[in-house]
């Protein structure tokens, strides 16, 4: 049975389906845009300023907290533990890309590159303490610059 193929007819239904999903997401964003609660910060080391890290990208404190944690582990000289802890930052950062990037793409790229350099330093074949310290210090500086805490 060769039926002449209607290329786009079904799309209206697909669109309706998508529109329904979209509507649900839309109302969601309106309520959250103003109050966007940050993901819970855990493991923020004592003695670290916990003022909200708000930038054009929004609240970055959850990511910054992990970076501070990694930095503290590096300072103790445990590069292996720092390497496994920074993966939490990589995963969290990567999964939030679609939410954060549209807010300020240029800032997002600055931070993304900085996180990449920290990942590279810790994942080098033979990671050195100086490289890791430098990369983490740059990363924390980047967070501070973006959030106006210079």
């Amino acid at each position, binding site marked *: 049975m060769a039926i002449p*193929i209607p290329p786009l007819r079904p*799309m209206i239904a*697909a669109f309706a389906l*998508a529109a329904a999903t979209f509507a649900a997401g839309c109302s969601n964003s309106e309520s959250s845009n103003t109050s966007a609660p940050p993901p819970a910060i855990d493991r923020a080391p004592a003695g670290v300023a916990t003022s909200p890290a708000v930038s054009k990208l929004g609240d970055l404190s959850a990511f910054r907290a992990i970076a501070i944690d990694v930095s503290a582990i590096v300072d103790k000289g445990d590069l292996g533990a720092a390497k496994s802890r920074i993966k939490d930052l990589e995963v969290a950062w990567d999964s*939030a890309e679609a*939410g954060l*990037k549209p807010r300020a793409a240029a800032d997002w790229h600055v931070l993304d590159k900085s996180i990449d350099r920290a990942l590279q330093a810790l994942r080098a074949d033979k990671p050195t303490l100086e490289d890791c310290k430098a990369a983490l210090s740059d990363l924390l500086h980047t967070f501070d610059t973006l959030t106006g805490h210079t």
Partner: protein
Amino acid sequence: MNALTTPAPSLLNKVPEVTLSFWIIKIMSTTVGETGADFLAVNAGWGQLATRSVMAALLVMALFIQLRTRRYTPWIYWLTVVLVSVVGTQITDLLTDGWGVSLYLSTGAFAALLAAIFIVWHRLEGTLSITDVVNRRRESFYWVAILCTFALGTAAGDLATEALGLGFVWGAATFGALIAVTFGAWRLGGPPVLTFWLAYILTRPFGAALGDLLTQAKAYGGLGMGAPWTSALFLSVIVVLVAVAQIGMNGRQAARRV
């Protein structure tokens, strides 16, 4: 010159009818392909290079099987589409993140490349029909064009995010509206082949935005389902729809043999 003559149809049609389930599977496979590759690269810790190589190798294998089959076989066809979706996205990501190519340039270049593919395809076959993919050359053009639409759709979608700050909520609305316009144009008698390919390009960023809408945290305006649950949901829908198509196809073949 044999190469310049149109070969007689030597195969049964190798591609599916364009139905509602065609577009649902197509849109959802975008999300599943992307989150799957992302999972391997980041969560499983394979890194981008290994993930790219594995996906490219899988695509070559799937294309080989798809080109070798005598007729449209749903599971092979859709496996190939998912892998083309992953690799098309990875090509654009590699250009953008790896080589620092501007998204304006890659969007323009992929659009020009796609136009060139259609021109050559039309010149050699005399048609761009997506309903009579009945010889190997047409099928090769079909898959190259599809790979190009995924790369173009990724670049155009990323460009909208970067240049216009278009997030996934407005992205889903914008690309959804453009798809609706394309649908309307087709209904009003617009060229079916052109509207099909436009829709094919637009459903790439639309599918990505839709996926983000479900996966992203509520703090970012998403539904907060997370990538694993969203992928599981979409994958289940795909598997059911492809299984229905496959069973229907097997049933028709069995009936024909009787």
